[in-house]
């Protein structure tokens, strides 16, 4: 079972990387890009049969993967993966 987790920076918080990437994309001619936010991405492989996988992933995010002060997270679970 695989969880795909995206960690994003909260909306009002400055995202210097996103800003730099936005500029770079404009310089490269991608003028239709209005905004870029950069976050982190995790693929977490859980052993099959893990009980309450959703609660476990949410806990991992809160305890370790995301910094609740400035980031939020969301994830999807792929039952089939692997």
């Amino acid at each position, binding site marked *: 079972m695989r969880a795909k987790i995206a960690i994003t920076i909260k909306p009002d918080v400055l*995202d210097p990387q996103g800003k730099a990437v936005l500029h770079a994309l404009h310089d490269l001619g991608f003028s239709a890009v209005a905004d870029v936010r950069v976050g982190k991405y995790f693929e977490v492989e859980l052993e099959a049969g893990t009980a309450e996988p959703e609660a476990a992933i949410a806990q991992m995010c809160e305890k370790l993967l995301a*910094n609740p*002060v400035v980031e939020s997270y969301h994830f999807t679970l792929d039952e089939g993966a692997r």
Partner: protein
Amino acid sequence: MAPETITPALIEDHGLTPDEYQQILAAIGEEPTLSELGIFSVMWSEHCSYKSSRAYFKHFPTKGPRVLQGPGENAGIIDIGEGLCVVFKMESHNHPSFIEPFQGAATGVGGIMRDIFTMGARPIASLNSLHFGAPEHPRTKYLVNGVVRGIAHYGNCMGVPMVGGEVHFDACYNGNILVNAFCLGIARHDEIFKGKATGLGNPVIYVGSKTGRDGIHGATMASEAFDDAAQERRPTVQVGDPFTEKLLLEACLEVMRTGAVVGIQDMGAAGLTCSTFEMASRGGTGMEIELGRVPTRAAKMSAYEILLSESQERMLLVAAKGREDEVLAVFQKWDLDAVVIGHVTDGERVRIRHHGETVVDLPVHPVCDGAPIYERPQGQMQPPTLPNPHPEPIHDANRALLEFFGTPIFGDRSVVYEQYDHMVQTNTVVRPGADAAVLRIPGSTRGLALTTDVNARFCRLDPYKGAVLAVAEAARNLACVGAEPLGVTDCLNFGNPQNPGVMGQFVQAVKGIGDACRFFRIPVVSGNVSFYNETEGTQIYPTPTIAMVGLVDEPRADVSGAFVRAGDRIAILGSSRGGLPGSLYQLWRHGGISGGLPAVDLEAERRVQMVVRQAIGDRWVTAAHDLSDGGMAVALLEMAVRSAQLGCSILSQPEGLTWEEWLFGEDHGRVLITYHGENEERLFELAEQFRVPFEAIGRVDEGRVMIPAVRVDLEWSAIHEVWRAGLRRVIE
């Protein structure tokens, strides 16, 4: 925006007392608008107005033949000859670092650097003084890693070497860590700029990052003790963008060379508000600002938010009328926003409009200097007692020493400073790891030495003597690299000043710093006060951090605090009395500290330092290391572990002292030196000439540390191993 009624609850939310609000009414003669209330709230906060501390700064010596700028500007300035001067300051970022260690520490570094380059100086070195909770406290690892990474993230990107600092652990910081950041820059005398708005009609230009909703009320946050509500303030966390600041640094130094800049000031705590009012205040002028022109990052920001935002990497500058295009062109070259947002006026009022509507119209002086000055009641803290007054006696000094030395308190700091670029700019002659860092000065044959010091345990037992000793230790660390002190900046970290015990500690510490600096003739040229360092009623130890800058005639990499050659002799300069109260050994054995500190003999301290400086200058010593934390035993072990597998044999005896006092006493005014046997006579004579006790205690040896009088015999590799692991254990 609908006009707000100013209610008592709103006033309280802004951290203002009913009395203070009455003073505001009296000063401005009418009810403030919401934005005006916000302005008073930040400008009269403890952080910006120093209302509880200002009355005591008179104890500091701030003048001297070399002082070009004392306290009051963004940073202090000291002449170092050859047309050059150094600009330096230290600041705390304690509360933000506790809430979000990475960004809190990072923006602390960014903020202090802006204070330096806003004056026209190029930052060439940084220091950081860190105090964390007990190593085993569940949050400590997270906080240490976050803070160190944050400092590295910002400082490394800026290309300013982080050449030294300190890392302390004590349970008193469990709920309130200290992150004090120091920066030093260098400039020619004729390149200095000040934060002054002068010249009627001169344009006021906003430069740097866009304004967002970050950090609104950061300054008032730094002025309140923590409670659960602090959690709710989290969205105010400021995020640092060191890349933008690096551009800002280069662009500011470049624009200053055009001659079109009249005054410039960074937007730090209290953001745009503080910079407009302070620049007007220093210039004896007023300003008119249109907030609609301020570049914003978030949609629909209110005037209140724009004024109080603490978004990072922004500056406010006043240019010469007619030359704004030259200024704007430089910022454009560096891809930075730069916008004329207003102009300088007379009349000493700041008028701020938002899309044409007046939102602020206030006289400058009440805002900048009108905050009440409090002389709060001073009391005394209960002296601490020992949790474990009668520990099991130690029978095996050998094992005890190894265990003691293996605690994180002494552990190898390289796990921290190797995360910092400490060599960029290629001036670092003595790298972190010695008593003080030494830099070569670009364009000169001389060098600078830098150190930060404070022993908060001593300050807890006796805030006056503790502060005196912090100054003495800093000066001693400089002496150990051959440097003569030039000046001091300080960061005074204390609890809640409304607690008379804390206020007593504060005033005693200020007097101690003042007296010691006066004695050594070292001016205090800048500094910072951080109150309210307490969580749920538990205060930190009084922690007046001292950063000291010195001058070396000839920077040399070869005298450090490590053994260099087997066969060298070892001596202690200064007298050993075996003082254990407040020592780390006492803390380790008894789980706490207690007792009184002996009288401080500054005259003896000065003479020891003179002997050390001269002996280094004359190349009579091969190494020098001051005795501080952990006493003689730890100093010897440190000289061993920093060397290439050299140890020592100590042949002297604990005369008149217990073995514990002899090994671990932390009497000030002592320095360990090593030297070639043929220099012993001259060193002895030199010491005698200055009436400094000189005690030859043994010699440098290969491979082991032996102190037969107490049956200590340790292999170098064993000592090295516990030292390498001590702090790594906490971090990794």
